[in-house]
């Protein structure tokens, strides 16, 4: 399935957001997520089913002013 991850097109196997994080190597990191610009909380990721063309954001802590 082809989706967008952090603004870039990507072919993925995962069918849920939780599985996507595992597939991309984020399983042991604290990340924030959004699907199609809507926030998805940590505990809901397992229930979120991905569809062709979805846009996923995956963010982590960074320096800020």
């Amino acid at each position, binding site marked *: 399935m082809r989706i967008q991850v952090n603004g870039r097109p990507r072919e993925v196997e995962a069918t849920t957001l939780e599985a996507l994080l595992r597939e991309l190597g984020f399983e042991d990191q604290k990340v924030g997520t959004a699907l199609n610009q809507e926030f998805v909380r940590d505990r809901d990721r397992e229930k979120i089913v991905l569809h062709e063309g979805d846009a996923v954001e995956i963010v982590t802590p960074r320096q800020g*002013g």
Partner: protein
Amino acid sequence: MNAHPEIAADPLTLYDAALRSRLLLGTARYPSPAILAESIRASACEIVTVSLRREAGGGRAGESFWSLIRDLGVRVLPNTAGCRTAKEAVTTAQMARDVFETDWIKLEVIGEEDTLQPDVFGLVEAARALCDDGFKVFPYTTDDLVVAEKLLDAGCKVLMPWAAPIGSGRGVNNAFALRALRAHFPDVPLVVDAGLGAPSHAATVMEMGYDAVLLNTAVSRAGDPVAMARAFGLAVEAGRLACLAKPMTPRDMAEPSTPVIGRPFDGVG
């Protein structure tokens, strides 16, 4: 840094937090993580701002930064820097609450690229949505008094007007507007956020009666960020103490400070 007794007895309250330091420090653009950590310690600040950014798969940049900040034992104030719509800002704030486990959010909705001026319409819209959702919102705003009223109506308990554009280091661009805000909202915590370049700028706004200052670039891009962090910490404390001490009223003409009576040679020749 040892606080003056007057300062120690004068805590700053921002939402649910009572703080000794009135300096909030950004964490971006330091020469190295070690200098960032040392600058935070030197400033004696208790709140630092942080952000969320995209992480490449397998990357660990976020994890190492977050570990460094947690070890310093300071509170974090996540921001929505770079967001250009209320929707983007609200979603970013929600992700920040999930990641940083705090309901504090420094709300930025940027409206114009050259000045990074807040889009005050989007700001008020996002502030209302976030306050309704239980966030404790610190809005980065202009010095516009009517916008400030709208942000308070939306549920904000703190306001953060700019002194000058972000990263400009210009100091106070519009002292009249900042004084008017302070006079109009005597009981609202007001934090000057953005545009300060030198410790004297920080002391100036603290002497005006501002409750705190938030800055980043003035420290992180200084020749010696650690020394500058300490200088800002001292200036903020000096400015607060001066405000509490009630500065004298300026006069147009000179007035001798040394007693005139008994001056030698008076009446001679």
